[in-house]
């Protein structure tokens, strides 16, 4: 069955079985392997992508239902030359260890910051409740967001 999908501001066409998950389309058809498969049950959040800016588990949504939406994957965050400020903060704060959950976490946090640019620690932790990180114990991921937002505040003060 024909599928037209807009991913990271690019239009893609593929022929996939009805019911195929967005995750399988991203990884197997579009070869966008930054989105990870951890459980295929919507528990781990490693496959989190943004659909029209909202974080979703790509393993749980059928790709055909997303025609006409804008899908953003980890490959659509930052540019080839520079990481997004959140990605930079994740690296600098030690928010990355094995890195397998990291793309999903970056997507969740990117959506959080877009909605609430100055989240509290509690809000960050609640936002992360759908993303399992087995390595870090979350503290340095939270630190990354806090550092990112305080840096943005400093930057905006500097430009005033």
């Amino acid at each position, binding site marked *: 069955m024909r599928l037209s999908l807009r991913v990271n501001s690019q239009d893609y066409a593929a022929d996939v079985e009805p019911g195929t998950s967005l995750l399988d389309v991203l990884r197997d058809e579009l070869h966008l392997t930054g989105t990870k498969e951890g459980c295929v049950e919507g528990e781990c959040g490693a496959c989190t992508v943004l659909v029209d800016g909202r974080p979703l588990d790509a393993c749980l949504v059928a790709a055909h239902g997303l025609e006409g939406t804008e899908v953003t994957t980890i490959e659509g965050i930052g540019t080839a030359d520079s990481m997004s400020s959140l990605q930079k903060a994740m690296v600098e704060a030690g928010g990355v260890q094995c*890195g397998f959950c990291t793309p999903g976490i970056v997507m969740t946090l990117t959506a959080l910051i877009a909605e609430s640019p100055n989240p509290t620690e509690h809000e960050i932790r609640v936002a992360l409740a759908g993303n399992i*990180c087995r390595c870090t114990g979350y503290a340095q991921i939270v630190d990354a967001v806090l550092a990112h937002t305080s840096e943005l505040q400093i930057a905006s003060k500097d430009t005033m």
Partner: protein
Amino acid sequence: MSALGSSAARSDGPVKVRGQARYTVDVEVSGMLHCVIARTTVAAGRIIRLDVSKARALPGVHAVITALEAPTHRTGLAVNDQPIFASTYISYEGEPIAAVAADTKAIARRAVELIEFEFEETIPMVDLDESVAEGARLVHPDWQTFSLVAPCERYDNVAGEVFADPQGVDSAFAQAAHVVVDEYQVGRQYQAYLEPKAVVAEYVSGRYLIQISHQYPFSLRNRLAAALGVRSSDVRVIGHHIGGGFGGKLDLGIEPYAALLAKVTGRAVKLVQERTEDLITCPSRENAIIRIRSAVDVDGKVLGRDLDVLLDSGAAAGDTPYLCSIALFMAGGAYRIGPTRVRARAIYTNTAPTGAFRGVNGTYLIFAVERHLDHIAEVVGVDRMAIRLANILNDGDKLLSGQTLDDASILGEAFAEVEKVAPWVMETRPPSTDSTSVLRGIGIAATPWLTNSMPGEATLRLADDGTICLISAANDNGSGAVTMGLRQIAAEEFDLSVEDVTTTLPDTDTQGFDGGSQGSRTTHVVGRAVHESAIKLRQKIFDVASKHFEVDVTDLEIVAGAVGVLGVPSLRLPLAEVAMIARRTVGSLGATASYAPALPSYDPSCATGFLFTTFPNPTYHVHLAEVEVDQVTGNVSVTRYIVAQEVGKAINPAGVYGQIQGAVTQGIGYALYEGIDIGNDGRYQQRTLASYRLPLAPDIPRVEALLLEHPNPNGPFGAKGVAEPPIVPVAAAIGNAISNAVGYQITSLPIRPNDVLDAIEAGRKMRQK
């Protein structure tokens, strides 16, 4: 420009945050086939018939292999007891019986469904006490035919037994003021790395090429070669980024199936486990029963002890015969004890084989020893902190193995550090009786822990542009040991920025032996090899520069990545120019060093069956947990968690903190959430990440870490192992805190809400009597 002691960012951070890091699940090879393993659905039985003809006939299927097409000898870490495929009897649920290679994973799955498998189910052996009872049905009726890798003491369903029976135990009990008896039961814990096990295998020109995310590529190479019956040099293992391991990716696992199918089909074969398959067959931390009996004097001093441990090996011994030895190191925990009888047995059951998980059995042995100590304090009527400080290990104290701990007084310093931030209040208040209120409790636990001493090797090469290539099979499981620590150590001798040091991923064809990412060894052991190779390379650089400048090498220095002549600021040769001059004059510059830590001495007569004999380069740990217990729901929240940890030298403080926070989080999971319940049918009851509850961001407090630094002369710049031990005392500290909160001695793990409510009720009844 020293980077040592700075929180330099990990070099693989940028590729990981961008989703560009390649894990094994991301590897594609042209013409690659997909493998699915057919597994048993029951835990025990006799195999009657296996017919794969319909599966073979399915279009798109390239090969189906069974025990008829695979080597039938058994292999293992300690006992050669594990076959590639079950052929005569089923020993656990999920045991492989066949493997399919097909064009797609979906076809391979359909083929598995077409396999006809007839068996006569038998009642599985699940209970540890039943398994060691006289006349118990044997999990492996043919156990006597299994050959040994290590000299395990074995009999019947016992895959390994360590037994120490020193003089004086019985007389200690004869003169005791109190005898305190406890039994603890702990469940399995799944490593739950986020990247499921995966492998891509090829068979090229008579050699197996294995691409994998594995913690110990050299062991995998040798184990796979043994399983396939080929020379170890016929296997090449190439490592990719590891999506978490925690011990679960240390041993041979799914590799033989992909390798055999690659040989049969002549194509690359990829095998990625599904989560449920991964969960139910992963060598999880074993469940265990710990029985402990102490002879205690009026002050709470332990005059003698009897410790009996049953570890569930599952259907294959794995590393459990070695783990039995750890009971000798942990029998007293961080405290002095009198003569102690230790019996630890690794027991076969009809369950998935268990194995290594961060902190191995130290986690539950310390849980038992520390819970028991709180119980002793209650019986004797002394303060829980006072009894610890009165009996804490000191310099020169010995482990039951006879090994002397030269620096155990660090434990006292660690207690003092905790005291500074959380002053201990002598407990006088009775437990709350208000059934709606939140109960609060505090727990403390301490332990020594070892640094794994498997050897390692590193090569440093001076690159054309004056940067340094660090080549080693040491791999970074996520800890940052390679991408932070080793780079920082390498940069030091050249006064380079860490950004000027590149690292490699493992390849057993091109790198020297490495003992794997296990037991916190990489920074300590490979770091030492990196440091020694850096000193050698620096010498070679100086030799080239001294000829160039026509000065003595003793007049040279390296500052900011350039060789200079002391006292002559105008004479300066950047390392890139050294590399070019060297190429013209002596050839390219590189140096290799390997390092094997010296092992401490011990008393070989301390026990029988003692296979894991030393506790090298110990570190010391004191943890304090504060909890709130909701009396209505039984929910526990950890409100404060303090770690005082000896690290030798913190090469990268942010990296050290990340290991402590991560390990404590896994420990909180072990203590409160993560339970695998095994039914009487031998099947796991938690089979998905929805039912196997892992710690989430809102559950976990920010750990307060207090680092102690007593540099170790053997480690690079004094560094000791860091990453494994902060999980060891966590369940103990939390178990003690909850018991303190509810006023009842908790004796099992995990401590889930129902267990908490039961304990509250039991405590209430006890006080009413």
